[in-house]
């Protein structure tokens, strides 16, 4: 899942859960049935889980584009100064 996919998944999750909660509450209140409210909300949670938890292809439509290898070679990674003295120091102790 890419960065934009992660943002989409989070927003989708929050929006869907809130929407289902509102629908469930109104339906339950109007029908006078607490059970109806819980069933609608439970269905909403299951659906939201199925949509936002797995790594679906539509969460991967904005892949990160890394620099080309040739571009990276023009700016070589700085080497660590030296690792020699430390080794010598440890040898002296022995």
């Amino acid at each position: 899942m890419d960065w934009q996919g992660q943002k989409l998944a989070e927003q989708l999750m929050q929006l869907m859960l809130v929407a289902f909660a509102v629908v469930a509450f109104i339906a339950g209140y109007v029908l006078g049935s607490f059970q109806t409210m819980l069933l609608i909300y439970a269905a909403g949670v299951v659906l939201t889980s199925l949509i936002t938890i797995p790594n679906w292809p539509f969460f991967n439509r904005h892949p990160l584009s890394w620099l080309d290898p040739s571009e990276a070679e023009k700016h070589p990674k700085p080497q660590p100064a030296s690792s020699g003295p430390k080794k010598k120091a440890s040898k002296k102790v022995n």
Partner: protein
Amino acid sequence: MHSFGYRANAVLAFSVTILALICGIASFSDNFNSPSPDAQVRVLNINWFRKKPDGNDEVSLTLNISANLESLFTWNTKQVFVFLAAEYKTPKNALNQVSLWDGIIPSKEKAKIRIHTTNKYRFIDQGSNLRGKDFNLTLHWHVMPKTGKMLRDNLVMSGFRLPEAYR
């Protein structure tokens, strides 16, 4: 939101938070219901009235209880517990309550009660104070919601009097 487990955790946490919230609102919605139950109790007969060997008075009554408790029920009501108590004053205690009958009403459809019964639980005074005693019959109810706080209230019916002599 980078991994399966992280997203699963987020969905679970947020959905349970919202569930708590809608349960809270459901509980709050009970405030819009203003119940107006009514009840009548008649004492049809005093079957017997005696002093027990240990000195306590005991009386047996035949009661006719009719009540309409439908207005106590809302969409958030699980059940209603209802009991009828005899309440009277003695020199020792300002309020004595003796439960005579009780019942559980599981649904609005069963909230119209019409019962003809002797007292389900024994009406015994702690002492010998019942002769010629004026007493109230009070219908108490506890409304048990599916979520939220249990509500309790009662309806006092006064003007009952026990006989002057044992029989």
